[in-house]
Structures are given as structure tokens and as C-alpha cells.
């Protein structure tokens, strides 16, 4: 996996734009994308346990939010996440860190797929409005 991330980094290096992201953020974005690709390729069940065990919290959200407070880079995002209703905020953070599909998120929360999509997408619209201001 590490080698895979590294090769992806190598192949995409010319697309790195230092004006947009720090190298470490960019690297982490690639690592995250490759992890999601891998999780999708293997299938949800194979990864359910390791993902849950890797996160202190089943959905990772509260700890992740607490950690965000320590980083200046994420201050604006954190502030904007704070303007969302709690349900949207939790779902977005859980989706981002859990690498879960809408289907998985919906069945975890025991809500219809459409409801989960709406909760997250409404949050994303608000988040975009807040961050792009």
C-alpha cells in the first residue's frame, strides 16, 4: 500500500500545485484516495473490522473533530463545520474519515439511502457557501 501511494505520488507529481495545498496535505489526499480505491476494490465487508479498529470511535468523527482544533490550517474548515447542523456535520466527517459509501452510511444510521444523501449534500452546500466566502 505504501509503495502504491508512493508510485501514485510520483506519477502525479507534476500536477502538484503548491499554491493550493501543502505537500503533506497533498500527499495525504493521495494516500486517502488510494485507500478508498483499495477499500472499494476489496469490498466493504473485508474492511469493516480493520477500519473500525483503526478508529478509536466507530465513525471516527468526534475524535477527528477534536484533533482539528489543534491545527491552524483547518481552522476555517472547522469553523464552517461548526455552522452545520450536528447531523450533517457528523455524517460528513464520518464519511470523510470512514471511507464509507452512502449505502454503508445509510445502513449504519438505519435511514433510507436518500435521506443520508440529502443530509450530507445539504451539509456540503452549506460548507461550500461558508468556505468560499
Amino acid at each position: 500500500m505504501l509503495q502504491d501511494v508512493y508510485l501514485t505520488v510520483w506519477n502525479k507529481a507534476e500536477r502538484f500545485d503548491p499554491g493550493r495545498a501543502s505537500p503533506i496535505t497533498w500527499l495525504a489526499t493521495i494516500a486517502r484516495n488510494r485507500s478508498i480505491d483499495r477499500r472499494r476494490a476489496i469490498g466493504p465487508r473485508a474492511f469493516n473490522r480493520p477500519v473500525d479498529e483503526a478508529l478509536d470511535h466507530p465513525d471516527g468523527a468526534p475524535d477527528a473533530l477534536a484533533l482539528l482544533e489543534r491545527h491552524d490550517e483547518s481552522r476555517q474548515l472547522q469553523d464552517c463545520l461548526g455552522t452545520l447542523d450536528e447531523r450533517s456535520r457528523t455524517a460528513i466527517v464520518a464519511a470523510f474519515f470512514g471511507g464509507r459509501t452512502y449505502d454503508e452510511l445509510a445502513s449504519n444510521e438505519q435511514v433510507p439511502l436518500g435521506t443520508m444523501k440529502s443530509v450530507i449534500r445539504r451539509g456540503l452546500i452549506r460548507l461550500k457557501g461558508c468556505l468560499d466566502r
Partner: protein
Amino acid sequence: MSDQSAEFSDEDFLASDYVLGTLDGAARLKAERRIRRDAAFAREVADWEERLSPMLAAVAPQEPPAGVWSEIEADLARMARLARAPAADVRQSVSVPRAGRQVSSFWQWFGLGSFGLLTASVLALFLVSRPLPQQAPLTASISTGSGPPLYTAVVYPDLRSATLVPVSVGSADPRHSHELWLIEAEGAPRSLGVLQAGGALRIDIPAELLATGGVLAITLEPAGGSPTGAPTGPVVGKGELQAI
């Protein structure tokens, strides 16, 4: 409640859903294909990455298996050898701006080399180092100022060493050597050694030289290095050490 799915179309949220990571395998592949084909969509994805990626700051570093760093280093050397083949002579690369085609290919190498290697080094540090360094590593992009970087340097204060990765350094000129110097705020430049042509270079640095950071510079010296212990030739590149 399921009628809420009509509230938003999947298509309109493809970019944000892709970045958030909620797409299933097939939709994800579709989005990745579209990123390659559709520049407007790719920009939309990049915008969402920029919005959401600060969350990644919350991810705690993990300690990976030992030995990965040396494997990556070996890969770097191999790839740097391959990349160097079409590059021009060092002095040409120093006076870049005339030939547009050359510039763009240098920038391409710069992109391929500098950031690939920088991030690889960062990756290695972030994930690989055992034991984890207590002091943050420093990096410098050693460039001519206007031209592309010659080397990307990553200095590990704890390990008293630096890794220099050639980016747009041309083929070796047997009559001259590149010598690396550390220039601190005060005092004369201190030689860190002569750079050998080849792949990634590991250079030992005395601990006392790393106390204050400074600027790394490379000069063109007679073969074997400066005869006087001080720089005698032109500066072919320099870069300030910065915390990652």
C-alpha cells in the same frame, strides 16, 4: 422518506461525493475517468479537495515497517537515473530561460523530480522513520532562482544527515565538481562535501551545523572540490532550509 433522493441529483454532486469518498466502486471509477477527460470537472474536484483536505490534519502519523525507507531510496536512485538520461548539461540548465522547449521539459522534470521526491521523502519521514525523528526535518529546493531546481534536499537534524535528490542536474562534467555549502546567518560558508554524480545522495552533516538552519548552496568547483576550503566558483543553485 426515500423520495428525498430526488432532492439532489447524483450527477451534480459527483465531484463533492468523490472527494468525500461516498461513491461506490463503479461511480468512483466513473468519476476518476471524468477527472482525466473533463478539465472543468477536474477543477471542481480539486476545489473540493482544497475545501475538505484540512481534515487530514487530524490524522495521526503511523509508524510503518522498518526498511521501507531504504527501498524507496533505491527506487529513487533508479528513477533518477532514468530521468537524467534526456536532461541537458548542468551549465545549460543553469542558463535556462532562453529555450522555451527546454524550460518546459525542465519544469516537467522539476515536477516529476522535485515534488515526487520531496513528497516521497516527506512520506518516508512521516510514515517510515524508525526511530521517529525528534526534530522536524528541513527541506530546501536548491535552484538557480529563475530556473528549475537542481536538487531537492531534505535534512534530518536528528540523523545528522541530508538526502539530496537530483532534479534537473545534467550529465556529469568531469572537469568540474558540484560542492555543497551551508551558509548560516553569520560566518563563512561551510563545505558539506562534493556531490557525486548519480542518484539520490546521502550526506552526513555535523550536528553543530544544523543548529540554526541556513541556506544550502551549490558552487561549481574544480574537479574534486574547492582547493581552498571556501567557494571559488560560481553559485549554480541555492535554497533556504525550511521546516516542512
